[in-house]
């Protein structure tokens, strides 16, 4: 879809300035101006990329192919089952082409407004959480929670020397994060997410060759190509893709990689 056919950010903000909208779903990282409007109007934000309900993923196969990005399948699952007044989806380079198609499908399937945006925000907010010493699951929960607010992160823990690296998007299944030590630094799109610059490819490609790093992407996501490319460039790397759930072989790969790299939890 040509950008000229998309509503402008100010048009979206105007559409959201309505008493009818109390509960809204977001996909990806919508522009800061949109989040600001939602915060000002105290509209409840639900991150549809996250696992919000326990419904069977198979119920999405009538809408999306079974072999498809598990995060976008989760978006559809959430959208099908949650009571929402509207959805805002980033369909630009900060998310992916597939999100554009999912937005189009949801707009046809749902009776609520599904608003497509392109987030090209480039004002950096920083990424203190990504460099802090904190349980990695807690770290990712804090990073993903940050997408709902236009404010800077509150008091983040101080930075620590990196013990390991995790590059990629926030995984659908957070159990993949359990084996990593709290000193794991977060790279890739997750860092862009905390920085509130989701389309910043240079930041997404930043790696630290000095520390063993797992390059993660969801199976069937275009980012698997970038994950593998960066893993080839990195001297101590494990490229990994996971679909809906973390398999025992995926957990074993991470465990062995960290152990053989001398990383202790």
């Amino acid at each position, binding site marked *: 879809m040509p950008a000229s056919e998309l509503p402008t950010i100010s048009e979206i903000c105007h559409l959201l300035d309505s008493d009818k909208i109390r509960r809204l779903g977001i996909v990806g990282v919508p522009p800061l101006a949109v989040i600001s409007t939602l915060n000002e109007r105290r509209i409840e934000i639900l991150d549809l990329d996250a696992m919000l309900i326990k419904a069977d993923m198979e119920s999405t196969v009538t809408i999306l192919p079974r072999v498809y990005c598990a995060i976008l399948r989760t978006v559809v699952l959430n959208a099908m089952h949650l009571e929402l007044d509207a959805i805002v989806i980033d369909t630009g380079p900060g998310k992916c082409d597939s999100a554009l198609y999912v937005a189009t499908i949801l707009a046809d399937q749902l009776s609520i407004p599904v608003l497509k945006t392109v987030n090209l925000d480039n004002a950096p907010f920083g990424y203190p959480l990504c460099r802090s010493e904190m349980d990695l699951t807690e770290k990712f929960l804090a990073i993903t929670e940050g997408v709902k607010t236009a404010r800077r992160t509150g008091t983040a823990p101080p930075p620590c020397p990196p013990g390991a690296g995790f590059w990629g998007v926030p995984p659908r299944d957070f159990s993949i994060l359990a084996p990593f030590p709290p000193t794991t630094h977060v790279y890739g799109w997750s860092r862009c997410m905390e920085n509130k610059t989701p389309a910043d490819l240079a930041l997404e490609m930043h790696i630290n060759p000095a520390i063993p790093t797992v390059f993660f992407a969801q199976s069937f996501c275009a980012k698997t190509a970038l994950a593998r490319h960066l893993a080839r460039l990195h*001297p101590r790397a*494990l*490229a990994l893709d996971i679909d809906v759930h973390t398999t025992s072989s995926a957990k*074993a*790969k991470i465990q062995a990689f960290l152990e*053989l790299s001398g990383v202790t939890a």
Partner: protein
Amino acid sequence: MILADFGTSYSKFLDLGAPTPQPSIVATRELPRNLRVDLATGHNGKRFGGRYLNELTALARGAEALIPEPSYLILDCGSRDIKYIRYRDGQLQDMGWNAECGASMGFTVELLERYYNLDFRRLPVPDKSFSVTCGVLGLSDIFDAITSGTDEAEAVARFVRGIAINAYRFAGSPAKLYLSGGLCDNPLFVKSFPCEVEPLGRFVLLAGLQHTLEHYPGNPA
């Protein structure tokens, strides 16, 4: 002290308490359910082991015990999956474990040998190969080739060469690789790699368990 590598099709044992410890092999389906060993690895290892060591860690430790160079790639081709570990200057560089799309290649090779009554020691490496990503999907190529008039042995040989090339590419197309696993005993498979291959046999993971006991006390806990 009994060590064991419980594979999908075959299990390998080493009794360190024997006067002259020698590895032995038993078909996994023939194992008694109440069997227990002291230290185990492999796909079925958690069912039988008092302590368990991750398969990739066992492979790396076995390579550490058996390969003298500081830089190498070891590729393990088993019944169910393929996995590799690459070291550079004594430091882990990368690794891979293809348990899904590399599924059942070794198992399928053994089935084919029996079904078509072939002897892989006598089959020459064919000029052509199938593009094989999975043992199950590769069967269709064999049946299609036979239907088109290709000799059965030639069709199976193309399949075997195809899985060797797939495993080689999965491991990053190295100039040389050390080969581990049951397929080391298949000369057609070993000769089908487009690179230098040094087979280490099917007891590398057992060597890894023994090396772990001797050099990594406390691992696994």
